[in-house]
């Protein structure tokens, strides 16, 4: 959905990423945060976070409770406004954009708790994001495709509230993906799911990533799931980036183990 090339020469907010400045080349950096700060009263939820994601990358965000993971996602989507710092998407600053404007640029999100519309049918749910850009037969085709992709064929007229937790997660991922985003944010997509449902979600995410080129930022506590899907893992701790690397590097890092087990002397933070 992003279309930066036609605007770059006109948009005063277009900037090079830190990596571009360092190397003198354009990179495929899709999202970058620049010293992003969010405070709630006296509590700092994210503390000068410099975080970036490449186009088509599948990134997992992990960290202890209160590390600032969900806050970071909300700052990226605009559902929370930053206290300080900037968010750049596709080379354009989006810090001041409303959430719906960020969606139109190509950012989509699935919330932690399944946020399907319980009173509406599966078809009505699937139709809602699609009706913005498709009409008539094309709309119906896309709606059915989204339902099929969620594995809900035959459940079109069921109320969404009657679906299982896993089916609701699948439906919501379908709804978010039907906006054809370049970046899809998933907040704990497999929390509370069975092993089979977890495998289905993992398969869904990797399929969307590899076949449709959608970049992902996935918050997840389940390290087995992270190991299954992630290209790269970022560990957040006390509102800042603690480590970044492959899942093997992260898992073998004793400092990461310490903050997860709470034995690190600095790990007593609380937060969002």
């Amino acid at each position, binding site marked *: 959905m992003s279309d930066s090339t036609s605007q770059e020469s006109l948009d005063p907010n277009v900037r090079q990423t830190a990596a571009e400045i360092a190397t003198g080349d354009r990179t495929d950096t899709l999202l970058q945060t620049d010293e992003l700060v969010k405070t709630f009263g006296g509590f700092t939820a994210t503390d000068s976070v410099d975080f970036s994601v490449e186009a088509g990358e599948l990134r997992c965000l992990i960290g202890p409770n209160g590390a600032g993971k969900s806050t970071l996602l909300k700052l990226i989507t605009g*559902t929370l406004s930053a206290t300080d710092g900037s968010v750049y998407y596709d080379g354009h600053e989006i810090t001041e954009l409303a959430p719906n404007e960020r969606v139109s640029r190509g950012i989509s999100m699935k919330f932690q708790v399944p946020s399907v519309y319980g009173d509406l049918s599966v078809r009505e749910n699937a139709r*809602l994001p699609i009706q913005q850009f498709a009409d008539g037969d094309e709309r119906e085709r896309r709606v059915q495709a989204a339902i099929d992709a969620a594995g809900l064929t035959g459940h079109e007229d069921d109320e969404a509230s009657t679906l299982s937790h896993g089916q609701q997660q699948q439906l919501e991922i379908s709804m978010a993906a039907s906006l054809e985003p370049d970046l899809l944010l998933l907040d704990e997509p497999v929390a509370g799911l069975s092993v089979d449902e977890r495998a289905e979600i993992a398969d869904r995410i990797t399929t969307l990533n590899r076949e449709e080129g959608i970049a992902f930022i996935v918050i997840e506590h389940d390290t087995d799931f992270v190991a299954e899907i992630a290209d790269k893992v970022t560990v957040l701790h006390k509102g800042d980036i603690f480590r970044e690397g492959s899942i093997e590097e992260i898992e073998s890092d004793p400092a990461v183990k310490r903050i997860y087990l709470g034995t690190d002397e600095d790990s007593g933070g609380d937060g969002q």
Partner: protein
Amino acid sequence: MAAESPAADSRSAPAAIARLRNRLEGPNTIGNSRWFWVGFALVLAVLVAIPIVGSGTGGQFSLFLVLGLLGLSLSFVWGYAGILSFGQTVFFGVGAYTFGVVSINFPSPTGITGAVVAGTVAGAGLAALLGYFMFYGGVRDVYVTIITLVSTLVALTFMAQTAGSEWTIGEAALGGFNGMPGMPLFTLGIEGLFSFQFVYNEYEVFIPLLGTRVFDPFYYLVLVLLVAAYLGLRVLVNMDFGRVLVAIREDEDRTMMFGYDVERAKLVAFTIGGGLAGLSGVLYAARNVYIDPSVFELYFATLPVVWVSVGGRKSLLGAVAATIAVEYLRLSLGGEFALVAVGALLLLSILFLPGGVVPWVDGKIARSRLVASDGDSPGGPAEVSDS
């Protein structure tokens, strides 16, 4: 659609009815079957017959229908967009006062017709102004309810102190608690071309079998406007826009993350609701040829919430039916006892039928169909494409 003659087919009466039903029906409205429309036609026939059969009752019933428009406006705003406005009466009152001021200053048929438009626009305009600051200011949920309630109480306080001669707009004295008398009789048209007086113009018609009956044109005007507003809102809530409103009602943040401008959608819905409430106020003032600040009082502000709660806020029809029923009850009981009865009705509704009477009846019918068809589809809402 028949492939051989699509043009002829699309012009045929059944195809036209199917298209009309496609517009009027959908998952966001109760009543999506042929039997519903048969019942609707029967009720409409009864409403048409009321002033004819019960000669002289049209006057009082016209008030119920006028208030039905106010109930409808709240049902749309609260039931569909999820905005509980406790101050729909501020738009109602402002519409009524605007109509009074404009019609007193321009008492010709053209002026009065313009006053109807001015009153409706004033209601919508005030809603747009208030809604803009609320929704774009991040005000949500119960705070919207409080602000709208306070708005109507502020209007009450303000209008109550307008008894002095300095509170005169042209020829129209606002009159404080004495109200604003002296409005011209409600006559619509264009001066010199055509005009028709709708109030205090009851005339006798002879109907075979029934004999001579009194015909109240104002009643029928209000009935037409109410039916048009009801059908118009049905079309609106079953369009893409209506789906977005329902989505906002269910989960505002989720809807925002689907790319929708939630604030703008709520503002549009709130403005439409304000316009309908304003039109209701216009008709109220036109019927009574008078308006006073009591329309801004807390008791009156509570009534639309009672009507819509009892009827079912997610049912446009329920709101209208409950408005007529509760107002009939209030009028029949009269005095302080009516207050107690209305309060008790609200409590009973919240305790035992929190979704309201009409959605409860609809659910019962759907379940009985499900049982009758032994597990087959209950004939739920037809899927509608408004493309």
